[in-house]
């Protein structure tokens, strides 16, 4: 079958193309490409884009004296999210909407006072959307806390001249809040999916595609060809794991750098914005997973039908979201920002590492773990900040993998709840994207649970 198909392919290509030089191929490609445009000169119908932009603009009112009011009741927020999601199937409309939403909410003549008032109003709307965890049902508390955590992060994330995209993102959060207050497991799936689809357009994390340049054959090899299940973190095995991991994702990881920087400079505001977006994305995916409300073992036994339209790219978004939201949750001393600022921007004595990070060559990047490194002090402060807050949940003397496996088994602990929630969400994404086979690749002992299998695969993935 393969030979027949390829034979036909070769015949067709040979018929289509005479033996050409590379230059001739390029010329031919250019000629063919010239035929790809619409000769009538008709442009795409962007009425949906205009409608979505108008919905966002409609939430902000400026009176004759320059006073700003922002209104994001449930109905308004829902209209904004629906209108943004309506363009999701058209690449042309998505790009046009992103361009439109990147504009500031206030016009060019706006004063600094108006901009500050707009920022305060948006923050106030976010605060109003918060959920009173004392009054929600027990089963909703976890979701309510994660949504509140995002809403708390809004103020620090806003730029000095808030854009339409930022307001649209807050509207998405308002719909998540409404879903928790008034919804149930059935509506969680729909609300969470709408939020994910909208955030992919309105946020920068939504545009980071971890799988864009993925080498599919290397990904398949990573999970299917006799990988040792030993995930001990000492030198040689860690090197092997990272050497397998890096070629798979290629150029995708440095895309995250652009979310943290402006004009190649890291800023605290960009970091706060990115963290807020990560939290929003994470809360949305976990809301979808909550809609299925089953345990990981049941998922892996194929007893659950998952049909939320999630793809393997969603796993990439979720992994980044979990990583950065977890960093921020544990970093109560806010030590990550000074470290990143030094590492990316440099200072009077140290050069900027922006270009090296973009290139993502592990051999050229400076080491931050050696005591003699100029970055060591700030890196250690960040590690200590996170470690100090993790110590209630994680004993550094304990083997890392055993710690997570025990957390899986006991979901009554704080870390147990978190780990099982993440695993459930990963399981839902993998099943929906029909990659649940990845979960079968890890060698398990007979007494190991399927949940442990998910965990082992997830740890390999990281």
């Amino acid at each position, binding site marked *: 079958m393969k030979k027949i198909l390829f034979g036909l392919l070769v015949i*067709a290509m040979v018929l*289509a193309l005479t033996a050409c030089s590379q230059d001739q191929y390029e010329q031919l490609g250019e000629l*063919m490409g010239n035929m790809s445009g619409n000769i009538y000169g*008709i442009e795409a119908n962007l009425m949906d884009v205009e409608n979505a932009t108008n919905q966002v603009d409609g939430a902000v009112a400026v009176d004759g004296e320059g006073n700003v009011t922002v209104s994001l009741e449930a109905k308004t927020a829902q209209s904004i999210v629906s209108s943004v999601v309506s363009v999701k199937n058209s690449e042309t409309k998505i790009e046009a909407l992103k361009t439109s939403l990147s504009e500031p909410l206030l016009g060019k003549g706006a004063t600094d006072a108006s901009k500050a008032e707009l920022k305060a109003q948006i923050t106030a709307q976010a605060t109003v959307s918060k959920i009173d965890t004392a009054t929600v049902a027990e089963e909703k508390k976890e979701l309510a806390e994660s949504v509140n955590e995002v809403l708390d992060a809004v103020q620090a994330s806003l730029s000095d001249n808030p854009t339409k995209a930022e307001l649209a993102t807050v509207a998405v959060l308002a719909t998540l809040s409404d879903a928790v207050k008034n919804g149930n497991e059935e509506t969680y799936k729909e609300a969470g999916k709408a939020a994910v689809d909208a955030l992919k357009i309105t946020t920068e994390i939504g545009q980071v595609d971890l799988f864009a340049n993925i080498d599919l054959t290397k*990904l398949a090899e990573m999970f299917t060809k006799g990988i040792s299940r030993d995930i001990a973190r000492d030198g040689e095995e860690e090197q092997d794991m990272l050497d397998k991991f890096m070629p798979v994702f290629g150029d995708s990881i440095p895309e995250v750098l652009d979310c943290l920087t402006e004009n190649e400079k890291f800023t605290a505001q960009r970091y706060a914005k990115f963290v807020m977006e990560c939290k929003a994305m994470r809360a949305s995916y976990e809301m979808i997973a909550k809609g299925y409300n089953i345990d990981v073992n049941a998922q892996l036994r194929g007893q659950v039908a998952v049909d939320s339209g999630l793809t393997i790219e969603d796993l990439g978004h979720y992994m980044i979201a979990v990583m950065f939201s977890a960093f921020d949750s544990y970093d109560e001393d806010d030590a990550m920002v000074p470290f990143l600022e030094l590492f990316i921007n440099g200072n009077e004595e140290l050069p900027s590492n922006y270009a090296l990070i973009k290139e993502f060559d592990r051999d050229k990047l400076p080491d931050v773990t050696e005591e003699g490194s100029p970055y060591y002090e700030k890196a250690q402060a960040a590690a200590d900040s996170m470690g100090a807050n993790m110590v209630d949940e994680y004993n550094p003397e304990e083997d890392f993998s055993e710690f997570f496996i025990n957390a899986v088994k006991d979901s009554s602990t704080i870390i147990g709840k978190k780990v099982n929630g993440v695993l459930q969400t990963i399981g839902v994404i993998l099943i929906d994207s029909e990659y649940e086979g990845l979960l079968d690749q890890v060698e398990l002992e007979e007494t190991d649970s399927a949940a442990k299998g998910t965990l082992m695969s997830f740890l390999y993935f990281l």
Partner: protein
Amino acid sequence: MKKAIILVLMVLAAFAFVFAADEPPVVYDDINFAFQPTLARYDAMGQSGIALPTRLDSFFTNPANLGVKRGFAVSVPSFSFTMYNIQPMVSDPDAMENFNALIAGDSDAAVPFATKYLENLGSGRNMISKIDIGVALKLGVIGAGTNVQIKLHTLNEGTSVASQNVIPEVNVAQTVGLGLKIIDTDVFSFSAGASISAVYKAYFKGIGGSKILDLIGGDSDPDKVLLWDTPVMGGYAIPFNLGITFGLFEDQLTLSATANNLNGKFYMKSYTGAGYLVNSYFEGTIEVPDDAPVARDSVDFEVETPWTLNFGAAFAPKMNAIQPVITADLIDMFELIKSFNQESFRASDLLLHLNLGAELGLFQIVKARVGVNRGFLSVGAGVWLPFAELDASYGWQEFGEELGDHPVDSFTVKFSIGYDK
């Protein structure tokens, strides 16, 4: 004892009921599964020409053409091959390097070439290729044709190769048509016709990009994947076409209207694998291997395919040395009329339902063609050889939801052995 046996049987039956599982149907709303044989001349002329009666295969689009131009024509067989997404590959130096290596016999270049091809398919729906093998006969006012068609669709709900799915589709169709010239004068003629097809269709559940690469790289057994490991949906439909044609000036100017793919609902069943589908019709044809998945129960479901209302005009003056032809079709008029009431309707949308084509023949031996298909250019050529015809076409069409989202190019070659003048 008897009661105990009955009890055990009842319990076993109950468990069998609990454990028996259905094969869930798979439906792809983004793919139009309507059947139409490959028409290279029609494609080269911007997919226009329903009013043009001068070829054997024209009765597939407008059965009234059987009445306009009666006579004898046969094609035994015709073979066509269409390849999509050629331009992105030709423009990519790495892809062409792998292509040259493949032609030179380096089989290691197959997987990198295929990977690059899958990357270029992008997101949403697309196609890889289409193969059509058919026989057709026109005898007086009756036409008949049998076609076997294989299509490779793709559907990517994400953005990367990792979420790409390839969906093979097979169609076997038998078409019969009748056209009558009801009014025939020197100035004016009126013909009407109908054709009906019996179509059996089977399509696979999407096969993931990584699995496709495994197949190409020889890491998976194609028989196992295609016969047993991939669910298949199979079923039939009996669609029919109606057409009328007005002819002026000895049918040198013709105006037509057609309703195509009426009654286009497919009655489908789900199967655990293609092997089980074949064995359900021809018991025991394919031996089931020991490691094949257990067959689940088939589920009945339906797949709707849209009908279209089309108008066309063709001007083909009867000349000796050169034979010019001009065609213009207004396609999918029912959808256009529905869109008049929508807020998003624009006057320019009318142009998006207009297909134009032109052909210039030389002594009826060599033909050059050009067309515009909803604003996208197409070109083609045809050569008449003794008892054979070779047609080729290249053009673009929109696969995305909105204009400019996802234009895709395709190249078609059709070779027919027979007589068709």
